[in-house]
């Protein structure tokens, strides 16, 4: 599949990108990607794809960290029995702060790792970077990548369609 190519179209305006994206979605296109300097609600709603599981992963990480922290304190308090004023060794109210802190810590670190895994980053090379104009994808241009082999687009001149929505330049890039 060396012929796998994307058409990469750059737009000057966010609205132009949204309109082009909406049209392609109406045609039934699914193999799309948007590159933008910031996220936007409209693009997110138009793009296909599953919702992110990052939240659930963070919840799991936090719960694991919290229960681990509680167990650690319970275990340590019994392993080195330290009697202060006859308080029970399993003095749970005093274990709450550390349990809370480690819940937050583990959830946050899980979030960082989950983000890297889900986005497959760091990845310093990517075919889109070959396009010289792409440096503005992080600044003030909005790029739309359309897969040329999409069956929904077989009868359409995609480049023409994109140009109709105001695409400044359209380049082919590898996938």
């Amino acid at each position, binding site marked *: 599949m060396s012929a796998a190519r994307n058409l990469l179209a750059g737009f000057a305006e*966010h609205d132009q990108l949204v309109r082009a994206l909406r049209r392609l979605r109406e045609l039934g296109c699914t193999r799309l*990607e*948007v*590159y*933008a*300097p*910031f*996220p*936007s*609600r*409209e*693009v*997110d709603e138009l*793009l296909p*794809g599953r*919702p992110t599981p*990052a939240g659930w992963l*963070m919840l799991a990480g*936090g719960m694991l960290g919290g229960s681990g922290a509680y167990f*650690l*304190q319970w275990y*340590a*308090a019994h*392993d*080195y029995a330290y009697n*202060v004023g006859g*308080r029970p060794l399993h003095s749970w109210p*005093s*274990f709450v*702060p*550390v349990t*809370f*802190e*480690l819940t*937050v*810590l583990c*959830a*946050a*670190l899980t*979030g*960082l790792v*989950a*983000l*890297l895994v*889900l*986005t497959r*980053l*760091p*990845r*310093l090379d*990517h075919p*889109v*970077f070959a396009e010289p104009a*792409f*440096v*503005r*994808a*992080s*600044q*003030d241009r909005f790029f739309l990548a359309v897969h040329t082999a999409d069956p929904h687009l077989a009868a359409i001149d995609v480049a023409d369609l994109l140009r109709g929505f105001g695409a400044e330049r359209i380049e082919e890039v590898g996938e």
Partner: protein
Amino acid sequence: MNAPLAHAEPLVAPGESARSIDARISRVPLDFPHPVLWWLGFAAAFAVVMVMLTAITWVFVRGVGIWGINIPVAWGFAITNFVWWIGIGHAGTFISAILLLLHQHWRTSINRLTEAMTLFAVACAAMFPLLHLGRPQYFYWLLPYPDTMGLWPQWRSPLVWDVFAVSTYGIVSLVFWYLGLVPDLATMRDRAGPAWKRRLYGVFALGWRGAAQHWRHYERVYLILAGLATPLVVSVHSIVGMDFAVAILPGWHSTIFPPYFVAGAIFSGFAMVLTIVIPLRALYGFKGYVTDRHLELMAKVLMVTGWIVAYGYFSEFFTAWISGEEFDRFMVINRATGPYWATFWTLITCNVIVPQALWWRRLRRSASGLFVVSLLVNVGMWVERYVIVVTSLHRDFLPSSWGMFNGTKWDWALFIGTLGFFSALLFLFVRVLPALSMTELKRFVVTGEETE
């Protein structure tokens, strides 16, 4: 004259576009404007860092005896500075996380800077309890690990909770700050001239390409981190408050401490934000992003938290009076009229009286006026911690065990040293990283949306 309604005033100056935002903000690290001023400031700060390193080295060599601490005043400067610095950090998280969840759009312009301030303040704060240990090289004994001595930390002690609270706070703040920076680092990579700069920013940007699928994950993680940071920031200073409140000492043993410490933290933190942001926006031309309206809003937060702090003082006095406890009543009278009376009245002046000037709208919108107020509040809050630590300890129950505390030159060297360390880190930050979030500002200007 009809004053415009506050909400009608734009948060970003009119005429700003994605292009102008990128240009103005990335110019500072890339083109290095005002090199002479920067070098002068950095050199001064760096010289003070050397003072700090000397002071730390001398603590390692001679021990904490070089400080003014004694029995009964065993806590002295180290704990005062710790509480002060960690409190300053809180405004950063408050602005980035709590105001984000509350949809306060004005946070967008200042969150990056204040998060950096948080990190640097936590770095300064964390030094003090460790050095105060006496044998700082054994700081890792605070951590729970299966050591050959069979010892574990004392889980019922707020001092152990502090270890977890402060380290969690530092790490989570770093993650939050770095994730917020990633898209901006990609912008820096794409705008930088020389190849080595592009590579360096590129590596730290992790190859971020702004793919919408990535943004989807990114936004969710960022939002949840904000949600986590919100209770975290409240917990950290509450635990610091409990360090005091759990002791039975009059002046410390009070249930008001955790919330009153949190309010005091945000109060002092906002003062520090103003202290930093006012010269920065003037020097680098950020007035279109950090507008007079931002200053006014921050001044209002300063007023509100100032009143909560004042309520805390009042509540301490009222509780002492209504308790009928002889020692509690003495503590209050001793604070106001005892040997440390001057510090007490400084704190009342700086924290309660001075912020009342902010009722005056012209002052809330005057950069120079606010700068002066913010400096006074910074002083006031440091003195407040000094009063809580020192005046409570120096005369507790038995007059035979009373004493006095005075900071020695090494106490001052270390404290002033951390001020230099903090400033030096800020200078480096504005030198190499975008001080305001270009991504969030652009999103706000182009789509009217803010990060969610």
